[in-house]
């Protein structure tokens, strides 16, 4: 039988197929799926540990879970005490739980601390063909390695801790072919590709599916770019994103802390090459093709990631956006009002107050290198406050070795410590009401970066150029 990559990973992780009650002959139920890798952080785990303790249960395989602190941590100087007492209690609770249950934690004092979806791959914890879960929707990021990776709720975190398994109804398969040639590959990034995909399929276009991204454009992407694509699969509603592993993937894995050692790795690579791909004639439940020949840099204008246009375009009218759907028209009217934008305004005419380069979507070394290309020798606009939040302490250190921190600081950027920061604004990095931000993060929902804040999602290069000019620009003219 022909199989998709997703089928293969799914099938190899089935503990019990399609039923919770084997005596009941139920074949439409959920399957019990084994979980190879579990990532936890301070926000969605405390309640899981609390009820685990309450019911006197143990963590089944403590070595298959790793923890970090990212959502809530300050990105200010780490030698200072934590100001927010409620945050502090949450961070301490995670440390205590990890100690009690024997789970490795990379906390604020660790040189490996960082955003959970940045450090997983960085440490080699993320491997092809594995199942990976985390109480965070952007777990889809790890799909870039050909792993089945998806976000779960806190009760499921508890379930995985206790059983190393999860009950799941098998999602449908969705193939997205990315064809064509990027005209200016330095100015048009993975972020622009995924935003244009979400524009096409909508924020719920991928609901109930696992998306596999394929095509020569995808094959040519680095691991970091692939992570950006898979990361935002959830913004298209998909449970997970997947990219079949290839030499790019295998090379990334070599020498990482939890990666198998050389001889073992070579054997595994042979196995992965033969097993981790979709058969050429397999039928997906849904197929879409995106052509990037004419893709321009993307900028969101509204309050969900599908509300996005080319940088050369103007803010659309609600009618244009709605294409005849009255509910979508109302949504666009509300979005324009919230964003304080008028239809017909060119995107390049929109001025920003803040720039945020960071988040699990775009805070890796390559993102920072790209951003530095347009920043070098230029100054941040006096109208703009701009910050760079590296995805992990390791990214920060590597960037500093390359002198990127100096480039950014000289031009007027703030160079901060690692964490989720202003992607979701759980710490003090937030927008004030009415402030407008060019952000490399993943969600432009109302209030996401702070109540009343207005978010435009863009690539790191666009965000950097925006910091210099104070408004959106066609970065293709810069590179």
């Amino acid at each position, binding site marked *: 039988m022909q199989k998709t990559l997703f089928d293969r990973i799914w099938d*190899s992780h089935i*503990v019990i197929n399609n039923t*919770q009650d084997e005596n009941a002959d139920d074949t439409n139920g959920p399957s019990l799926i*084994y979980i*190879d890798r579990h990532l936890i952080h301070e926000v969605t785990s405390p309640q899981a540990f609390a009820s685990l303790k309450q019911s006197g249960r143990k963590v089944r395989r403590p070595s298959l879970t790793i923890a970090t602190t990212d959502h809530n941590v300050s990105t200010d100087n780490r030698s200072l005490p934590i100001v927010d007492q409620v945050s502090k209690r949450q961070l301490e609770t995670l440390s205590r739980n990890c100690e009690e249950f024997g789970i490795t934690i990379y906390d604020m004092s660790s040189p490996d601390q960082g955003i959970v979806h940045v450090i997983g791959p960085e440490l080699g914890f993320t491997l092809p063909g594995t199942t990976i879960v985390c109480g965070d929707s952007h777990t889809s990021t790890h799909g870039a390695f050909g792993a089945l990776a998806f976000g779960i*709720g806190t009760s499921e975190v*508890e379930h995985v801790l206790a059983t190393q398994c999860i009950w799941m109804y098998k999602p449908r398969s969705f193939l997205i072919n990315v064809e064509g040639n990027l005209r200016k590959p330095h100015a048009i990034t993975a972020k622009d590709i995924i935003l244009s995909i979400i524009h096409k399929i909508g924020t719920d276009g991928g609901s109930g599916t696992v998306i596999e991204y394929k095509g020569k454009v995808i094959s040519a992407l680095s691991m970091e770019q692939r992570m950006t694509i898979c990361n935002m699969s959830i913004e298209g509603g998909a449970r997970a994103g997947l990219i079949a592993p290839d030499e790019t993937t295998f090379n990334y894995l070599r020498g990482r802390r939890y990666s198998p050692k050389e001889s073992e790795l070579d054997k595994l690579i042979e196995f992965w090459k033969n097993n981790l791909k979709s058969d050429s004639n397999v039928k997906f439940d849904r197929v879409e093709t995106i052509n990037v020949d004419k893709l321009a840099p993307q900028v969101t204008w509204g309050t969900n990631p599908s509300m996005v246009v080319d940088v050369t375009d103007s803010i659309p009218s609600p009618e244009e956006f709605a294409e005849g759907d009255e509910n979508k028209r109302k949504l666009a009217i509300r979005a324009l009002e919230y964003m304080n934008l008028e239809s017909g305004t060119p995107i390049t005419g929109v001025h920003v107050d803040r720039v945020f380069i960071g988040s699990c979507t775009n805070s890796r070394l390559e993102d920072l290198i790209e951003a530095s290309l347009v920043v070098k020798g230029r100054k941040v606009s006096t109208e703009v406050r701009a910050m760079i939040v590296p995805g992990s302490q390791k990214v920060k250190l590597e960037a500093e070795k390359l002198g990127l921190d100096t480039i950014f600081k000289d031009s007027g950027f703030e160079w901060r410590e690692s964490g989720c920061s202003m992607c979701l604004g759980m710490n003090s990095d937030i927008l004030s009401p009415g402030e407008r931000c060019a952000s490399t993060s993943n969600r432009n929902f*109302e*209030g996401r970066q702070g109540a009343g804040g207005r978010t435009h999602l863009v690539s790191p290069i666009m965000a950097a150029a925006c910091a210099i000019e104070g408004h959106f620009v066609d970065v293709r003219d810069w590179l």
Partner: protein
Amino acid sequence: MMNVDTDQIIPKQFLKLIQRSGYGDFLFYDWRFDHGGNPKKGFILNDPKYKERQVLLTRDNFGCGSSREHAVWALFDYGIRVIIASSFADIFYNNCFKKGLLPIYLSQNEIEYLFNLVGKNDVSVEISLHEETISLTEKIINFNIDSTRKKILLEGIDEIDVTLRFNDRILNYEKASKIADYNKYLV
């Protein structure tokens, strides 16, 4: 409206707590309250008429965005027991069953019919999970729910208990699976 995301249902400033309850007061916080913490006029939950309602009617893709189960806890704490929508985001839909909140999906036409109805009058409904029906004065609307999920809600089943009964199967999997072999690199 469409695409009500979990950041709206429970904004991030309330995710710092370490317990499972006490989120009801913060449900839809930024929509319900102004920057001074005063109730905003015009938001439906601030209308005394809608106090203590148990059924939430909404449109496509409810609960999209962040996986935070706090969204379900906030709705439940506030008193919501059933959400009727044309579709739900996957993670949110799953999370509902962990707390005993019933998510019902209906066709677009049925949703519009209900919106029309509640737009005109106060409507009282009787929802039977057992029968899979929404009973209105005018008619009965049937809904679908998977039998396993239905059983979990009706019987309040602890899924970890269910899984632990399969412990032998998990052990066998761990022994047999090539994939589980990867995990030896983690020690």
